[in-house]
């Protein structure tokens, strides 16, 4: 097991990389699969020192759900924000800083959360607090900052907590 662990330090990563390879090769041939797998094994092995203590992912279904939620939010938020930019007068807009307290502790999870916040238009993760327990988020137009915060915690953080911890 230990040997196996040493050879496959990051099984998820191996999978991901093989997928990336297949995408790169843009073909579903045996050759690319074998080669992708080969590289998928070799590269994590080489880069192992650069990614110590990898998180363990628990809930695969949750991941898919999360992705779908985020994609949906992105589309919706895009439209909202586009309206704000195009049609709202600048002085009517109410930008706001909000502080999102974090329950997540894994760096990976925090990163995913922060990334999600940024990628959904209208909010940008600006900073982390000095001990990493809060996220500073900027809202393009948030008449009610607290609602935004609650939504973030509800929609994303909760799911991430399930996935990562």
């Amino acid at each position, binding site marked *: 097991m230990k040997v196996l662990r040493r050879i496959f330090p990051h099984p998820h990563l191996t999978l991901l990389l093989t997928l*990336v390879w297949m995408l*790169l090769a843009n073909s579903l*041939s*045996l050759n690319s699969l074998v080669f992708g797998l080969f590289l998928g094994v070799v*590269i994590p092995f080489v880069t192992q*020192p650069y990614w110590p203590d990898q998180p363990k992912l628990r809930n695969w279904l949750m991941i898919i759900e999360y992705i779908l939620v985020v994609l949906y939010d992105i589309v919706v938020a895009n439209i909202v924000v586009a309206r704000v930019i195009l049609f709202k007068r600048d002085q009517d807009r109410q930008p706001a800083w909000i502080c999102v307290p974090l329950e997540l*502790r894994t760096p990976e999870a925090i990163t995913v959360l922060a990334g999600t916040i940024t990628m959904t238009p209208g909010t940008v993760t600006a900073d982390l607090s*000095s001990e990493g327990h809060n996220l500073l988020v900027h809202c393009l137009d948030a008449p009610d900052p607290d609602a935004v915060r609650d939504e973030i915690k509800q929609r994303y953080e909760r799911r991430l907590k399930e996935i990562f911890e």
Partner: protein
Amino acid sequence: MSLFLIAALPFLGAVFPALLIRAGRNASSASAGATTFLALLGLLVNAPAVFRGEVVTARFDWLPGLGLNANFYLDGLGFLFAGMILGIGLLIILYARFYLSREDPMGQFYTYLLLFQGAMVGIVLSDNILLLLIFWELTSLSSFLLIGYWKHLPAGRQGARMALAVTGSGGLAMIAGMLILGNIVGSYDLTVILQNKELIQASPYYMPALILILIGAFTKSAQFPFHFWLPHAMAAPTPVSAYLHSATMVKAGLFLMARMWPVLAGTDAWFYIVATTGLITMLLGAVIALFKDDLKALLAFSTVSHLGLITMLLGFGTKFAAVVAVFHIINHATFKAALFMSAGIVDHETHTRDIKRLGGLRHLMPVTFIIATVASLSMAGIPPLNGFLSKEMMLDAAVHTTWLNSPYLVPGVVLIAALFSAAYSFRYIAHVFLGPVRDDYPAKPHDPGVGMWLAPAFLVTLVVLIGLFSSAIVGPLVAVASGAVIGGEKLPYYSLKIWHGFNAALYMSIVATIGAVILLAMHGRFERVWNALPRPEAKVIFDAVIGCLTATSRKITEGLHNRSMARYSAIFVVFVVSLAGYGYYTGTDSVPTRIGIEAGVMPIIGWICLMGATICLVVFHHNRFVSLVLVGVVGLIISIGFNYLSAPDLALTQISVEVVTIILLLLALNFMPKETPWETTNERRFRDVIIAGISGLGVGGLIYALMMRDFAFPTISEFHLANSYKGGGGTNVVNVILVDFRGFDTFGEIIVLGIAALVIYALTEAVLGTRVRAYLLNRKPDMPQSGDAHPLMMVVVTRVMMPIALMVAAYIFFRGHNLPGGGFIAGLIAAIAFIMQYMASGFSWAAERQKVFYHGIIGSGVLIAAITGMGAWLNGKPFLTSDFGYIHWPPLEEFEWATAMGFDLGVFLAVVGAVMLALESLSRFAWQPGIASEHAMDINPARDDEDTEEKKEV
């Protein structure tokens, strides 16, 4: 003995004194003497042949391509001079042994002396004027060393430099003259030239050749107006003076004139130039000599005067005068060498050469007195000494010379010169040896040991003997030598007797002698007048000229090369553009043959972006950071442009290089000022804009013109397109060109990259080894720094990105042969993947995880590329010959292998290693104690949970 050996002996022998000096001064001087003696012996062996009228020759083809051959020949003239050079040289070696003091490096002295002797012998024996030139310049060089022998004396150094400058430049003029001469005749061999008098004198180049050669001769023989170097050369030790100024160096010019006499003399130009110069020099030297208080200066100017005399004789162009000249050369050598030696003895014993401080030495130094007196009287032309003989003949020749239809001018001037000549000769005797004994000599004078006076005594004996038995002793010598001078024609009538009866010459002699006595008696009065007279001091003028030359040179040099890069670049650009324009406008231009591609909206937008960004870049360049951002924009657009214009490989390369370059520049900018000050004037900026605009127009116009025309011939890339797959096994032609058709370029290119990294590394090491390190350690950032150097998000993202990026790199690498990509781009991507780690997690954290040294990666990359290339040798194919094939491993599909892959792997490794080494080295500048962290992220909430858990456990 072969002439080669005679000429070579002094040079060969020159090694010994320097080496043998460790064995003692005697050994050193003995070796010099022995060498000279051997050479003299060798010369004498040839004497019978010479006196029979034969010409001894020795030929060796040295540089037949140029006509410069080591041809020597020995005729009467050469024999005379060689004999003088070697004979007096032997005496000088003896004399110098006792003259030089213990502190003087005697080995050096003899070495120089022998070098000089060899050069002189070479001159007189050369049968090739180019060879003669070599020896000629060699005498200048070796005399430079001899005159400057006493390095601690400023006079010596200056005198040496002056002598070198004057005689050397004369030599240079002579080179031109000789080349012209050779060009006229078609050969550089003297024997040939000497037979072509008519050809030479008829040539339109006769005058330039004559003047140039005479400049050489005059400078060497200290003729007016080049006479001034000679007295200053007196700073040399007396043996040197005695040698250089009696028998050798200064006689070289005379020798040359005598040598060239058969072909150059006989024209009006020759007469007026040479004779007049000689006449002036003779008079001038004689007058100045009388008023010199320095013994050696007196002798020096007397030498100048006598050289003038001989020059004048040669200039007369008559056979008789030529014979007299030869005769006087012999006589002058004997008495002048003796005089210099006697002056040296006086100096050596009394520690002064100032005539004003001397007098009455005849009692204290009787031997020296006798030597000096006899020699002086000979110089003054008193019978029955040899000086008298030749002087009489000279006067005789002068009397028969008309100068510009005036029969009296020459004799008149000659008479005055003779008068002064006699006067200074008498003064040498009267003011040094006669008179009362003084008690204020700087040292207690007495006669020196026999070693010192033996040599001058021998010469003085000769003076007397030649005077008495001239025909017997030197008659044959004069005959053969003069015969050589006048070119083998019949000798004129002359007689080397004391008594020629009462003739004009005798009367003149008598007048001169009596006049001289009177002049000497009134010397004090004349001296006051002389000192009051304003007269140009040659040394001052010379120094001023040289000083001016130096100062001007400095001004030009420093003015031109003022180390202003901006100016250098501006000159570069302007020059290049204007010459290119010249090239264009002198050629014929055809009309454009191609129709351009219509530009769509997108290219125009891209163009606007590019132009806009470039203009902004120039406008905002004072803010360095902004200029870098704009460089990024420019790079991005160019990369898109490459892609748009069907160059995907270029686009990939451009964008990845761009990223690395930006990182590099930002790393450097961190330590540099962030602003460029406004320091140029508006005019300068305007000028720069003009220069830049013109160059831009030029380049733009050029490429436009090129693009609008078809190739005049089919391009070679058609072959590449046709053979890329067949011969190279790849469909991406660009890549196949890179790794196969032109793999050698790529090989060079990765080496360039590798060297760049090495240079950066070496420089980092060097700079961090100096006080810069301390500066950097104490350096406070010049901009406020934020917290959170290694943000969590970045770290996490790069951790995910890195394997993916490497995957992409691998993909780009493997597909490169068939699709856009390849080792280079892959290498850059991989390098950037690593750089991301450095940027995100910190230098020390990332460096700690780096197990392989970048040096090794670079080296192995280059080696792999080279070894792949050399693998072809095993197949008997040239370097870098590639091979490829297909492998089929069931159940996999067939796939291709190519040796080019190995080469590309080398490229990949070299690129990764080079980029990483460069960036790592640059990053090391920023290293400061305390910034290293064991953690990749500054803030990691997971970590303090662990901490608390640990605490709980405790």
